[in-house]
């Protein structure tokens, strides 16, 4: 990998009473898709918010660094962060319904973003907005500039969000559950679009998702998170071919997709017992209480990430 676009090192995110992300390190290289995958409470969305400087009021970065374009984002003033957001870092969220302003036309919203960051005349920005709508494959882009958000379907709205996110030629695109609210057939189209932009414009993509299928199909590399900590970091193909961490193994085999022709009349799904716990209460491995192969040590000593091959790291003493 060349110099990474985004380099997160030893990140801790803290609330007054909890530390929902602990000791997280990963890099995203130019033109690659890195997926952070996890269930609720894994800290994946907080990580994305930390990169964008949008942590909730009571949360703070307690340790570590987030390096982007030669700067540590954790030390920037809100004003400087504002210039980076929507400029060098583009963002797409889960809800295309609420992310667009309902009382402004599509064109107006895109031109505002362009003029905020690049300046220029209204006409130039409008021309660029039409180009962007064409880029995200919205049919009849010039006419669509005057459309209102409610006139578009969910999939089309998400395309508009993507157009706004890449309006200022970002080097990093953060996509937080970008297709969770969309139907499966639309979901495939939107991800195909994001992947095309990655390829054609060389944008690095940080994909935050709970959906293992998306990761398997679209990511180059994967960070599997559980209760605030990275469990496994690996290439996507290597991870799905041979998951090493007991949590990754459990998650992949529990998926109905992994059952093939085996139906429910043939036997139960392999399941991970118990509930998602919280990281704060545990000294040892956060997965230990649910882990089928936990050693006595696991409850008291936190396993560090260790390399198992060139691009594969696992935080588990049992994994081979």
């Amino acid at each position, binding site marked *: 990998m060349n110099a990474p676009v985004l380099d997160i090192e030893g990140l801790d995110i803290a609330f007054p009473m909890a530390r929902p992300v602990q000791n997280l390190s990963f890099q995203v290289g130019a033109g690659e898709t890195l997926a952070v995958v996890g269930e609720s409470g894994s800290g994946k969305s907080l990580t994305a918010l930390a990169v964008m400087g949008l942590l909730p009021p009571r949360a703070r970065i307690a340790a570590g660094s987030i390096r982007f374009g030669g700067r540590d984002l954790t030390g920037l003033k809100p004003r400087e962060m504002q210039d980076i957001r929507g400029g060098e870092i583009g963002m797409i969220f889960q809800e295309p319904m609420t992310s667009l302003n309902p009382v402004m036309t599509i064109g107006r919203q895109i031109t505002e973003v362009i003029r905020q960051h690049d300046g220029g005349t209204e006409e130039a920005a409008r021309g660029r907005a039409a180009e962007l709508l064409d880029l995200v494959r919205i049919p009849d882009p010039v006419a669509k500039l005057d459309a209102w958000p409610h006139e578009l379907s969910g999939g089309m709205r998400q395309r508009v969000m993507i157009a706004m996110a890449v309006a200022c030629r970002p080097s990093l695109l953060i996509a937080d559950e970008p297709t969770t609210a969309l139907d499966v057939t639309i979901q495939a189209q939107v991800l195909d679009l994001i992947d095309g932009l990655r390829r054609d414009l060389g944008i690095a993509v940080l994909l935050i998702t709970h959906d293992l299928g998306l990761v398997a199909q679209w990511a180059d590399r994967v960070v599997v998170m559980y209760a605030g900590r990275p469990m496994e970091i690996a290439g996507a193909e290597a991870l799905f071919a041979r998951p090493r961490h007991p949590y990754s193994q459990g998650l992949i085999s529990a998926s109905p997709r992994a059952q093939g022709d085996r139906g429910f009349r043939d036997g139960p799904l392999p399941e991970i*017992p*118990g*509930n998602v*716990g919280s990281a704060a209460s545990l000294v040892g491995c956060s997965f230990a*209480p*649910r882990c089928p192969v936990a050693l006595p040590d696991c409850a008291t000593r936190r396993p560090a990430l260790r390399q198992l091959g060139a691009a594969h790291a696992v935080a588990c003493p049992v994994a081979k």
Partner: protein
Amino acid sequence: MTDMTTTTAMAPAGSRALRLFLRNPNAVAGMLILATVLFAAIFADLLAPGDPLTMVAQPFLWPGQNPAYPLGTDMMGRDVLAGIIHGSRVSLAVGLAATATSLLIGTLVGAITGYYGGWIDRVGMNLVEIVQTPPNFLLLVVIVAIWQPNLPTVAIGIGAVSWPTLARLVRGEFRAIRGKEFVTAAHSLGFSDARIIFREVLPNALPPVVVTSSVLVATAILMESALSFLGLSDPNRVSWGSMIGEGREMLRTAWYLAAVPGLCIFSTVLAFNLIGDGLNDAMNPRLAGRE
């Protein structure tokens, strides 16, 4: 399942709200004022024995002039303190009875219109608008003028003009809650409408109703005072409003006659408003999360 063990033990929502309420200094101040008034009302016969309308000393004794009558006497030589103490009964009784009346009507109308919708809702809301169109107080004066000017009439009258606020509130809550899945679940379980209205939906609609009720008590006390001031309430009972009404003619020479009961009304109304605010903060789940 092992997942039982990982749930955090949380107190039921009710006791958490109570804890938040008791931690709010304004709400506690309101409770203290109300407790004082309540004490006076309950033990009025012990604190100030005898009829407060009898003449006991020379008229126009200023507060502090004679230690036997700490708040002085009025133009007819009646003890102001005794009047205040007995008057608290009227204010509280009318405030609470009026609120109970409007709770009964308002909740029933609001629940039924909000739950059923359709033509029932249209009829109910028309009724609400009819009651709300004339100014409340004017309507109250008419009601009291038509019936006897005694305390039950006054209380029911105030209730009868102030229920529309509650009806609108309860209707709004019911419309929001009736679409929730647990109500659909109740339908699919074959529960009757009455059971769904009173046992499934109503308990969920109560928090804002409780908050509004405390403010309604305050409003009712003010209305009763205003009626007494105009001499339209029960002439045989001392009330804070009637004391102000009688004292207003002496405002230049003996302003304390109007000021003392005025202060009582002010503090009691303030107390109910503080309690209402405190309840609102404590029962609002969004704010309760601040804990």
